[in-house]
């Protein structure tokens, strides 16, 4: 008697668990993108520009539904190579695009659609009077850079080498937005970030231009993935990004023409 009781006690939650698992399984099946749903994996520096592009793309293509996953390019590559369901992959630099091409996860050639250069980000009004890269070497300044492992860090390192400036930052951030936060919150005096990042925070920071001959240009490219369930729609999206309208939106957010 007691035994049947205890097995009932166990059986009930077990049934619940199994039912839930069943539901989840069914749910994930029905969550598979319909033919007009488009999942785009895009580098996080594109967030503002691509949201605007997504809105216009949906208007121009009634019935399509664009969903974005914005993350650092490196993390996106990792997710993609682990089988994440992206129809379009957009990288912030050639290194990360090459990883996807090397793995054969692409369907067709990538399209280079924009460039981005670097700027010195300073507090609003530039209270420390930073006018060029050499000013950053001042020992009293708190300078923050991206780590060498991410595209913005590689860019900053190249720029400083080009300028012959040797400096010791207080921190190597793993994300470009981390550098931006440290400057906008007033904890750091300056950093080297993308022009688009300075533009994105508006009045919270100012930018000091870096001369073109010292600067680095990162190339943004987009590719349709091999596993895209709807490669025609995916290709339409990539074309839209490269179109005159897409380029106008990107330019408004500070991106360079390819």
């Amino acid at each position, binding site marked *: 008697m007691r035994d049947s009781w205890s*097995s009932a006690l166990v059986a009930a939650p077990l049934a619940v668990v199994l039912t839930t698992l069943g539901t989840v399984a069914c749910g994930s099946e029905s969550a598979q993108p319909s033919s007009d749903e488009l999942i785009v994996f895009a580098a996080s520096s594109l967030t503002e520009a691509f949201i605007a592009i997504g809105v216009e793309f949906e208007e121009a293509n009634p019935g399509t539904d664009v969903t974005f996953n914005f993350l650092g390019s490196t993390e996106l590559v990792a997710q993609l190579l682990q089988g994440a369901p992206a129809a379009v992959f957009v990288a912030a630099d050639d290194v990360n695009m090459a990883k996807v091409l090397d793995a054969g996860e692409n369907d067709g050639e990538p399209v280079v659609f924009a460039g981005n250069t670097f700027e010195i980000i300073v507090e609003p009004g530039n209270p420390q009077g930073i006018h060029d890269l050499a000013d950053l070497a001042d020992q009293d300044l708190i300078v923050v850079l991206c*780590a060498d492992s*991410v595209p913005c860090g590689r860019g900053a390192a190249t720029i400083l080498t080009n300028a012959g400036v040797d400096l010791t930052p207080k*921190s*190597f*951030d793993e994300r470009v937005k*981390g550098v931006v936060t*440290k400057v906008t*919150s*007033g904890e750091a005096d300056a950093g080297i970030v993308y022009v688009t990042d300075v533009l994105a925070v508006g009045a919270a920071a100012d930018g000091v231009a870096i001369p073109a001959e010292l600067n680095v240009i990162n190339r943004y490219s987009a590719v349709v993935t091999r596993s895209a369930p709807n490669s025609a729609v995916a290709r339409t999206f990539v074309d839209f990004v490269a179109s005159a309208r897409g380029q106008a939106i990107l330019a408004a957010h500070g991106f360079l023409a390819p």
Partner: protein
Amino acid sequence: MKRQRGRTNLPVPAIALACSAIAFFALPLIGLLWRAPWSQAWRYINDDASLAALRLSLICSLWATVLSIVFGVPLAWLLARVQFRGRSFVRALCTLSMVLPPVVGGVALFFALGRRGIVGQYLDRWFDLRLPFTTAGVVLAQTFVAMPFLVVTVEAALRQLDGRLEDAARTLGGAPWYTFRRVTLPAIGPAVVAGSVLAWARALGEFGATITFAGNFPGTTQTMPLAVFLSLETNPEKAIVLALVLIVISFTVLVVLRDRWFFGRNGGSSTALP
């Protein structure tokens, strides 16, 4: 595992579910072990940057644990024993950092203790004291996220403790501090250890608040989790090895202290865990 008298009376389905839970935790670890580049392991561990990160992690997490005990035990005692208005509000406030995304916690610390922060601006102006980008900043960020684990554990133990013991001590003439030190503290000892271990483990693994508030610089603020994360981008093999080092250390401490304190003495103290 040997079958002990009167213990393993669980029906088969429950055992099956329990084993699934064990597999759920074990498989990711096995995955790491499976992918670990064993032939290179020692070379990855035995380099200056890794050793500096390891040393910094141990020092900072221990300091964070000490601070958590010194401030957290009295806080838990206050929450469990003293009736005051807005107590549930204060309790929620003090455990907020458990649910706050750590990066947000780091930014919040800026607003409080950064050089433009509510308090930080005066630390900077009057004492020339700056916490961001320092090792002290790492300790602070870790304490911020770790202390609630100790507070919750110790408070639960205090609530389980028979309040009449303390009443008796007081009736017999014990001053509040004496009662706390000689009656309360010994009774909740195991819970304090349990909470400290949890807080320490949380501090050791802390990433988001640390990199935001203290930054990432080798030797001063780059702890093991930061080193692991950055290695993931450039050298995933090294990241796995460093992560395993972190796991082995915390695993050893959890296993040793758990057997010794949670079940060794009176078996019942495991209720102190949240």
